[in-house]
């Protein structure tokens, strides 16, 4: 049904309205040809028997009322093949690396159906990222969606790259299983050329590109295209995970730009706005992206998501981080103060959280003492953090000996546990040993979150024994 219309009635922002005389499906793909021969792609946003509203991915500039509109009779599809690995595509899925055209094995709608909860497998396998603040305190699990909450000017990209580089499943490596390979899908939405270069250079330097698929929508690309980029990326991820058995890590940056694009379209359609002008359906829309992480019973692969978002004004009650936090399974906070102290990566573990952690750590997964160490370190660090305010008023001398130890712990925790540099890869054992070393600065009686037997086994009594402990 390649019927061609020249009936555009209104062009407004990213939207084009056209009269029609044959019904057109909701979400159907559209091509608009401008008088000078440019072809723009778009999608039907609203369909009635008389007119349609079309959102144009490549921007509406240059479209006039004489442009012709063709309805393609199908919804937006992503061409899929294992050969996508190593390729760089535009935000709407066209190759931009000068390589050959993609010859798909299969095409799929990018909207993606929801996974039936009874078909899911509960994620329990630990992914070692080599970053202590994550492995030790907020463990990442295969099939999880764990966003990074950051702010403008913070090194969230370095952390994302570090995770992409270092992520491994130690158990499988030990057992020498063939297992499934890791693949990285990188969906960039509205990032600057410089940031893009940083990512691409790192991918090329470490050879990660050959196991990656990159979708690039840059800051100067049309905003509307950003609404399809993550769907393209996730459709590819699902294909690689559930058909080709890869363990796929999807990095989406920056979700804030994605939400801005949603707002832009909502405003152009004159919808009733929700909080701060973002559309009322943003929760549902974001959920349709984030919920595409997971594992499915009987399939080898998995989809793990690390979306990155920059919180406007570092405010986590802003609708974007707020709605994200309600959907994702935890969050990692990047902290401006820690960053200015030179801590790398500047992860603030107190508000950070991994909801799937409890079931993926401990004996048989990481180490028996993991849960207790992490709980105790959390509590002690929170205590020390509280005391810092007090110290500013009354000074250290006014505090008890134990309080001073908590203060020391908080400092050491930041400088030795969280601080590790973007190039250091720590195993989970190393991470936990550092944890014990720091906790041993506190008296045994204060370790009320740790099982007594574990204290016996791991507590570092004093300087001389400490050496012996770390040696084995």
């Amino acid at each position, binding site marked *: 049904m390649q019927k061609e219309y020249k009936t555009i009635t209104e062009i407004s922002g990213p939207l084009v309205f056209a009269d029609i005389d044959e*019904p*057109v*499906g*909701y*979400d*159907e793909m559209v091509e608009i040809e401008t008088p000078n021969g440019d072809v723009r792609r778009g999608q039907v*946003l*609203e*369909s*009635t*028997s008389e007119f349609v509203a079309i959102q144009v991915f490549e921007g509406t500039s240059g479209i006039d009322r004489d442009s012709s509109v063709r309805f393609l009779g199908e*919804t937006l599809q992503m061409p899929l093949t294992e050969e996508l690995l190593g390729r760089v595509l535009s935000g709407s899925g066209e190759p931009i690396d000068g390589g050959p055209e993609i010859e798909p094995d299969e095409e799929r709608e990018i*909207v993606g*159906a*929801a*996974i*039936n*909860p*009874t*078909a*899911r497998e*509960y994620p329990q396998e630990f992914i070692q990222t080599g970053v202590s603040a994550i492995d030790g305190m907020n463990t990442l699990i295969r099939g999880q969606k764990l966003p990074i909450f950051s702010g403008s000017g913070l090194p969230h990209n370095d952390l994302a790259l570090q995770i992409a580089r270092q992520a491994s499943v130690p158990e499988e490596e030990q057992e020498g299983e063939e297992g499934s390979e890791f693949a990285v899908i990188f969906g960039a939405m509205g990032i600057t050329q410089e940031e893009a270069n940083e990512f691409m250079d790192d991918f090329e330097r470490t050879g990660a590109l050959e196991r990656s698929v990159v979708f690039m929508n840059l800051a100067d690309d049309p905003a509307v295209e950003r609404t399809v980029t993550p769907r393209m990326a996730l459709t590819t991820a699902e294909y690689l995970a*559930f058909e080709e058995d890869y363990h796929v890590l999807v990095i989406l940056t920056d979700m804030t730009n994605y939400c801005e694009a949603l707002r832009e379209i909502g405003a152009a359609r004159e919808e*009733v*706005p*929700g*909080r701060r002008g973002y559309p*009322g*359906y943003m*929760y*549902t829309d974001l*959920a*349709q992206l*984030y*919920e595409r992480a997971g594992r*499915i019973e009987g399939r080898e692969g998995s989809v793990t998501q690390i979306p990155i978002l920059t919180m406007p004004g570092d405010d986590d*009650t802003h609708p974007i981080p*707020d*709605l994200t*936090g*309600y*959907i994702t*399974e*935890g*969050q990692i906070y990047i902290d401006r103060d820690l960053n200015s102290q030179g801590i790398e990566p500047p992860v603030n573990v107190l*508000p950070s*959280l991994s*909801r799937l952690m*409890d*079931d993926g750590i401990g004996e048989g997964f990481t180490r028996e003492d993991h849960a207790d160490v992490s*709980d105790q370190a*959390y*509590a002690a660090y*929170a205590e020390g953090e509280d005391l810092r305010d*007090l110290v500013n008023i*009354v000074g250290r001398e*006014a*505090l*008890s000996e134990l309080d001073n130890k908590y203060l020391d712990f908080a400092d050491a925790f930041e400088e030795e546990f969280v601080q590790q540099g973007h190039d250091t890869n720590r195993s989970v054992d190393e991470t936990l040993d550092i944890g014990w070393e720091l906790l041993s600065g506190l008296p045994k009686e204060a370790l*009320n979150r740790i099982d007594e037997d574990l204290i016996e086994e791991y507590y570092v009594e004093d300087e001389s024994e400490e050496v012996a402990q770390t040696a084995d």
Partner: protein
Amino acid sequence: MSQATASETTDEGVIESVSGPVVTATDLGARMNDVVYVGEEGLMGEVIEIEGNITTIQVYEETSDVAPGEPVENTGEPLSVDLGPGMLDSIYDGVQRPLDVLEEKMGAFLDRGVDAPGIDLEKTWEFNPDVEVGDEVTPGDVVGIVPETESIDHKVLVPPGYEGGAVAAVESGSFTVDEAVVELENGEEIAMRQEWPVREPRPTVEKETPTTPLISGQRILDGLFPIAKGGTAAIPGPFGSGKTVTQHQLAKWADADIVVYVGCGERGNEMTEVIEDFPELEDPKTGKPLMSRTCLIANTSNMPVAARESCVYTGITIAEYYRDMGYDVALMADSTSRWAEAMREISSRLEEMPGEEGYPAYLAARLSEFYERAGKFQNLNGSEGSISAIGAVSPPGGDFSEPVTQNTLRIVKCFWALDADLAERRHFPSINWNESYSLYTEQLDPWWRENVDEEYPEVRQWAVDVLDEESELQEIVQLVGKDALPDDQQLTLEVARYIREGWLQQNAFHDVDTYCEPEKTYLMLTAIQHFNEEAFEALEAGVPVEEIVDVEAIPRLNRMNTQEDYEAYIEELKDDVAEQLRERY
């Protein structure tokens, strides 16, 4: 609604426009809330607005590729659920389609246009009659018993709409849910399955005042902020503060006969956890699998928004059906904010005039209608049953002044405020003891006196006072430091710390600590109170506070929670504390 009869409307209409989950149709003869099938694929939807010849429909499935001109078919029935044996141990989506059946039909991903009945129409159940020919029955009466699961006997009731009368024939043996098992003289036939529209409460005789607590095995809830069987509670909290863990704990350990768990717009992996965990867990009372008393309704956040709007109604209707049998039902809805947002989303697609923060003006009415369906009731058949409704609320940014939290608080009588700050220090359950409240405390006190200990309400009041005093003292400590306080206040802080760390904190992931019976809740608190008395005596006798807190036995107060044989442990601990303190003077 009357417009429908005017012109040449039929049971079939034509789609006029499509915008996300909202579809309009022309020439459709329909009443408000009728269920319709939309488009070539027959997607399920519900009529939500009628204006002239145009009918607006919310569609429970994805509408990609649906085009104007496609047909719409009216079923003429409101959205209803199937009620009958087979609902326990099941997991449904928001419109009561069994998810395991859907998986068989269409694989791991939820496709659309597939329908499945809420209960298996093929399966046969053993029907044991409870009436004889000639008996008079009226609506609500029990006519027979079906062993539904290991722990629950399903009672077959005369449907509320029936006239009733003398029994003409009774069957006994194996039947499918649609076969008539009892026939009345007026020709009415009773089968094991009945239907009920979800938006309409099932009838009862009257609502009564609840006087028994719903024991959850969670110390802070049972001990400080109890909910009654038939009560309502809200759990508001920002993300990451432990709403879902608290809801799961309640679903696991609450001493209700039946648990209906509604996962409304929540995470897929969390629902999977429930589906995987529950069948393995044992009911602490009966030793039977927990799943055999549980009905799960899962509408994850990426499933269609209209089905999210309906899932709480589906849940409460199922709960009412079991209440009618005389059971105590606990309904958990996680989270009611997602439900409210679904209302908002649909309302904004309808271009209705928005109320506060974009929520529709009828938000408060819908919330109170829902919570009013909870309570302790006298049923039509004379039995007593209850529904306790516990709703999680997810306020944006953790701000309790937003409309959903505020409108919920106006209705519910228990408020369990989750606190992000406590969660950050890994104090779980992170329920803030200063902000939370329960209005059931007084009416439940007699139960505690009778079943746990005569002294219980006094001991609880003591704990509340200590915690209050602590929060006042903490303000001073923030300014001048702990050491500047007089000795007795320092000691109070120490006692309060043990109440917090040893009693209020509870580890949901510890085998023993995950469930704490009321006796243990009480005994643990008396141990701390005992320490308090001994310590203040020592202080009066001149022992400095540093020495008191240094006593070796005292930190063991923080380990009472994990003791299986707690009675002996607590006895010994009390003796040791007293002995070691008395040694110092």
